[in-house]
């Protein structure tokens, strides 16, 4: 059933061809797109085709790729750059890695097409150094492509020349932001700069530059060969084609999927993903990576496209989907993601540098039961202000986990500060392990397993947990054979 819902464009070759053999790619129709561009199409025609296809950036922001190329084509320059953003950094997401490892030539081909379209001649793949296999296969691919003459001087006998190199990222999440990526490529500190000028006007070394994500690029040769209408026919009004997602978390079918835009969350989670693990109740799914937001059980009918996700305080992002069930505390989840962005913020602008810290501290306070209703209000206010004032995409989306969880689960927040309880039973500071007198048979197992010896009671007598000494490890709960210990 799952197979029917999926449609593979970006990942069309992954797993089917030998990624270390260019002939295998060519046999699958590879480099036909480039040949078509060089042989039959003007650069303007390529850009028009891209515009007509409606493809938007798969890195997360969803900017129309054809429009981006059109801007870069407009500026006259002796050198223009095509940059492939392979700095995949979302925790639990590996779409780009899979494509680069499984089908590196599709990215190379698309970069050459992009360079031809904008009038450029140089390309750079910015890839995180933690992807050694992807790097190896890219190197092999570049070598073979050069040998075959599909990259290099006068490609396929045309006037068009294109050189490629690889630059390694040092694992900074913010370097996925295009201006930060450019700074990093130039050897500067990986931090964004304010736009305009956009990279299409003055990017890498101040030359017109287009920065495209791996998945975007991998789709392009197929679009060129099959035409704009084919691609345009897939998806919704505003979001065309397919999207690759990395399903993770508490879901049965963990892994990569590629589905057409407009598919519902219900279909992705319940059908393609095979539903929540262990028959638990679906609670929410974090989309758009750590700075995305949570779609909840209330959003199962939402169609997955750029606009609908933003309307739910989330975003498309690069394609991470982390599924949560009834055992997950949404405050703790928000804290987890904010902690990630807090660690990864470059520290350039005030709202992101200090604001992320303060959001984290507020969430931490709430999960420890030290928060107040006023704190929740302040948290909301701060989150909105950060979205409004931060310099780059990272900062502007960083409060999303807070705002999106509050949208549906504000009662969980309230429970933490008013009742001092964690409804999901996750926040250890708010938990109590209690022995149910009626069920306890006095077997002493719990007392023996307790690492801090805080359970008292004699054989065949009801046991009692010393709440002051309890470290909430849950060992007693797991050990009890009589369900006589509950957490609340």
């Amino acid at each position, binding site marked *: 059933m799952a197979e029917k819902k999926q449609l593979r464009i970006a990942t069309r070759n992954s797993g089917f061809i030998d990624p270390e053999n260019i002939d295998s790619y060519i046999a699958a129709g590879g480099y036909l797109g480039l040949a078509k561009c060089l042989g039959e199409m003007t650069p303007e025609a390529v850009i028009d085709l891209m515009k007509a296809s409606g493809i938007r950036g798969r890195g997360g922001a969803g900017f129309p790729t054809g429009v981006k190329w059109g801007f870069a084509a407009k500026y006259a320059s002796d050198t223009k750059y095509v940059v492939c953003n392979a700095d995949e950094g979302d925790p639990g997401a590996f779409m780009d890695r899979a494509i680069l490892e499984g089908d590196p030539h599709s990215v190379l081909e698309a970069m050459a097409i992009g360079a031809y379209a904008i009038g450029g001649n140089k390309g750079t793949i910015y890839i995180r150094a933690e992807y050694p296999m992807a790097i190896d296969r890219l190197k092999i691919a570049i070598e073979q492509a050069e040998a075959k003459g599909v990259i290099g001087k006068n490609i396929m006998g045309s006037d068009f020349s294109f050189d490629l190199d690889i630059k390694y990222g040092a694992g*900074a999440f913010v370097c996925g932001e295009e201006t930060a990526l450019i700074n990093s490529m130039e050897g500067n*500190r990986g*931090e964004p*700069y*304010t736009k*305009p*000028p956009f990279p299409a006007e*003055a990017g890498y070394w101040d030359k017109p530059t287009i920065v495209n994500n791996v998945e975007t690029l991998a789709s392009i040769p197929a679009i060129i060969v099959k035409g704009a209408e084919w691609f345009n026919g897939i998806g919704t009004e505003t979001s065309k084609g397919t999207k690759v997602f990395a399903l993770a978390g508490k879901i049965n079918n963990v892994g990569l999927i590629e589905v057409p835009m407009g598919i519902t969350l219900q279909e992705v989670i319940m059908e393609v993903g095979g539903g929540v693990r262990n028959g638990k109740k679906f609670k929410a799914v974090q989309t758009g990576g750590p700075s995305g937001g949570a779609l909840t059980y209330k959003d199962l009918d939402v169609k997955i496209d750029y606009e609908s996700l933003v309307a739910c305080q989330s975003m498309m992002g690069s394609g991470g989907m982390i599924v949560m069930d009834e055992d997950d505390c949404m405050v703790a989840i928000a804290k987890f993601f904010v902690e990630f962005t*807090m*660690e*990864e*913020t*470059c*520290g*350039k*602008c*005030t*709202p992101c*540098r*200090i*604001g*992320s*810290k*303060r959001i984290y*501290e507020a969430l931490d306070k709430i999960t420890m039961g030290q928060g107040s209703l006023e704190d929740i209000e*302040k948290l909301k*206010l*701060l989150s909105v*202000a950060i*979205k*409004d*004032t*931060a*310099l780059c995409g990272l900062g*502007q989306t960083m409060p999303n986990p807070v705002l999106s969880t509050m949208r549906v689960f504000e009662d969980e927040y309230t429970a933490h500060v008013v009742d001092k309880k964690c409804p999901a039973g996750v926040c250890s500071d708010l938990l109590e392990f209690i022995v149910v007198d009626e069920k306890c048979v006095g077997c002493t197992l719990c007392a023996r397993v307790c690492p801090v010896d805080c359970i008292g009671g004699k054989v065949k007598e009801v046991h009692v947990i010393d709440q002051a000494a309890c470290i909430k490890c849950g060992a007693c709960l797991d050990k009890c054979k009589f369900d006589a210990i509950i957490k609340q």
Partner: protein
Amino acid sequence: MSMLNVTVDGQATQVAAGSAILDAANQLGIEIPTLCYLDMEKKFNQQAAACRICVVEVENRRNLAPACATPVMEGMIIKTDTERVHTARKIVVDLMLSDHPLDCLTCEQAGSCVLQDLCYQYGLEQTTFAGQRNDYPEDATNKFYSRNLNKCVACRRCVTVCSNFQNTKAIGFGDRGFNTHPVAPFDRGMDESTCVSCGNCVSVCPTGALLPKSKEKFRSWEISKTETTCSYCGVGCQMNLLTKGNKVVGVEPLNGAANDGLLCVKGKFGFNFINHPDRLTTPLVRKDGQLVEATWDEAYSLIADKVKATKAEFGSEALAGLSSARVTNEENYLFQKMVRAAFGTNSVDHCARL
């Protein structure tokens, strides 16, 4: 130059293409607070736009726009005076304050601190976001200024001026996230960097994070400022002399035609000679081989008599004068006039060649 139509707070105006929103607002007399903005950054795209205090509402834009770094587009409608803008700005200041000591009572910068002014403007007596604060040891290894990074708001002006204008590149940014702060190489003392002590970072620091090591204690409101020209090399940097009573206690650069807001170590920090105890304060005349104090009249008479007598006895060619490349045009003019008209000779020269 093409002009663009723009509306700020309901007032329509025209600005040159390439202007930032801040320029348009200034043109209309609408004040937008700034902190990291450096007016020596001539192109808007060089602004760090890091502090986010100058954010404004732009119609049809999702988020707020930094006025310093957002170029005006044709027909742009900008609002600077809305609830949304004020709330955002207040929170930004509040956040800055949450990682800043509240020691204005003893801070040397009090009275000329941009953060202090912003807190005053937004009515922030203390932060509402109490939390962890950065704690750095003070770095006093430079001979001319000290660095207290606990007062740094990471506005980047120091790094920008050092790397883009002075071009010494002695400092950059170190660490990430909440701990981001300006650093000398390897986060060591300034004395281990390539710093040439030009003090331009000190001049642009909006808070008390970079302060000159001053011999004098003074409050900013006790200071008078006098615009003048530097008295060292021939560049002719424009600067303000800061004076308290009859003492020069500091120097700040001005945007002169030659220096554009920059100074060097001598211009910025080399002013203590002015009120130095070794200054000559009375005329001296040589009596019995020793220089002893004299009145102006005594000194003048002695010189006048000697000049007249020498001229009478040996002729004008026995007199000569060496003028100075250090004094003013007016004084040089009078000096050569004295030598030519009163001594009667053209034997006047100065150290132009030395």
